[in-house]
């Protein structure tokens, strides 16, 4: 059990591919790391030892992938209990998950959009509440990227998110790349969408790069450099939420050397430094 170390400043997704370079020295600008419990909890051997060596010196954020908050099968309480233990082992204070589903009765291992209906809203709120009870903390829910809008929508996505955050009394994990990708794929205004979210509840921010298909469809790959419109959206978000919310760079594919990633993390630090410190209060 480690004492809790809350994340602050700018961070980087912790990847095995980067461990060698990070062992030689963690760049000044990286104030915390993020891990997916599904990739790291319950592991022994070298993986466990290396993760511990970093988590003893740096704050870590726990960012889940498999919980299926909007899914059909009963909430995986064994997973949640293991996550709680894992967070304790590494002094993590923040857990976030996607506002999505990834399983019917069986896992699909990827994030799918929840139909924006009242019943789905209630269903998801109940599961978030259950998760928060088991973890003993408020969790952050991330606005997800999606490529198809499920039928049966009874409200806008921003309203769905706002009501979930309110009804479940949880926090918002804001992903600006996901907003950009969705705004391109569905033709809406990213800043308008941003402004309709419960930004006063923002606990954590993601920024990442994406892939653009030949026909213009944007795919949220986390496999490329962050593009300027996404940096711009991050700057706008920081003007709203202030500079003291932790922001993490995600990079999961085509991972470049640490120097290239560090330059992007430094960009986050500059954006945070330019933002007002006082967080905007809810209207």
């Amino acid at each position, binding site marked *: 059990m480690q004492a809790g170390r809350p994340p602050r400043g700018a961070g980087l997704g912790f990847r095995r591919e980067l461990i060698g370079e990070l062992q030689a020295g963690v760049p000044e600008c990286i104030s915390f790391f993020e891990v997916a419990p599904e990739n790291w909890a319950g592991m*022994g*051997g070298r993986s466990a030892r290396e993760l511990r060596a970093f988590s003893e010196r740096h704050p870590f954020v726990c960012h889940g992938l498999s919980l299926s908050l909007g899914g059909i099968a009963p909430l995986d309480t064994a*997973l949640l209990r293991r996550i709680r233990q894992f967070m304790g082992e590494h002094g993590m204070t923040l857990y976030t998950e996607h506002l999505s589903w990834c399983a019917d009765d*069986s*896992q*699909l291992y*990827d994030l799918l959009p929840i139909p924006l209906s009242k*019943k789905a809203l209630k269903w998801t709120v109940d599961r978030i509440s259950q998760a928060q009870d088991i973890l003993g903390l408020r969790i952050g829910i991330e606005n997800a990227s999606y490529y*198809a*809008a499920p039928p049966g929508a009874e409200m806008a996505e921003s309203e769905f998110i706002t009501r979930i955050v309110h009804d479940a009394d949880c926090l918002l994990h804001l992903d600006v790349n996901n907003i950009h990708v969705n705004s391109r794929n569905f033709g809406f205004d990213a800043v308008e969408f941003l402004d309709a979210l419960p930004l006063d509840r923002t606990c954590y921010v993601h920024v990442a790069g994406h892939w653009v298909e030949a026909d213009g469809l944007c795919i949220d790959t986390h496999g490329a450099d962050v593009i300027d419109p996404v940096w711009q959206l991050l700057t706008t978000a920081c003007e709203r939420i202030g500079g003291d919310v932790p922001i993490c760079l995600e990079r999961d594919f085509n991972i470049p050397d640490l120097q290239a990633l560090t330059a992007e993390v430094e960009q986050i630090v500059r954006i945070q430094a330019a933002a007002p410190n006082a967080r905007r209060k809810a209207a």
Partner: protein
Amino acid sequence: MNQPAPDFQDFQRAFAHHLRDPHHAPRPPGIPARRAAIYGELLFNNICGFLDKCFPVSRAVLGEPRWRRLNRTFYRDWPLHTPWFRDIPREFVRYLETAEIATPRPAWLSELARYEWAELAVDIMETAIPEHDPQGDLLRGVPLLNPARLDLACAWPVQRIGPDYRPRQAQATHLVVYRDRSECVRFSEISPVTASLLARLEEKCRASASGEEILLALADALHHPAPQTLVDFGRAVLEDLRQQEIILGSQTL
């Protein structure tokens, strides 16, 4: 009383079925073909990423089309409940071992896959090593087996299979896959006698039997005419296993 499932879940089930089996399960109304295809590709590529990484030899010996067909039927047919990505390869091994699979494949494929999976499993196995004396006497003391270890009894010589060697004759093979003190995964082929000694050690060391007691019991079970000869032979085997770090030393009781 069973409540009817909320209608949004009908959509989720229909979409999940379609994503697992795009050629047979219909695309749910309201989901454009292009967008459904993107999801199908993302999800299947994701699964293939986990499988390709764990099973390079199986993939190479089957060739791309057959390998992908097996990946596809696995994703379509095999119930996957584990939230842990590292367990996906283990589920694939179970699928190969127990499911009814139409794709023709070599008789040794499931053993080869289990052997490949063992490397991953041992690498990340969560174990606690009890206190022990690395130099301790293995006959008078209780030998401590390396807990980060899988013993494989195969009908085929899986460790030699590759694109250039596809055995036609079964050949019983005993392998130990384990993590050494420097946390590297190592493979060791052992004799059938050593394999049965390992099995006894695994069983009896928990009951705190000494190396000598275990060897004498083995001699008794084999109706060995000269038990002391077997003990002397066994001592050399135990020392060899210690040398390889399959035995870590003697337990500190």
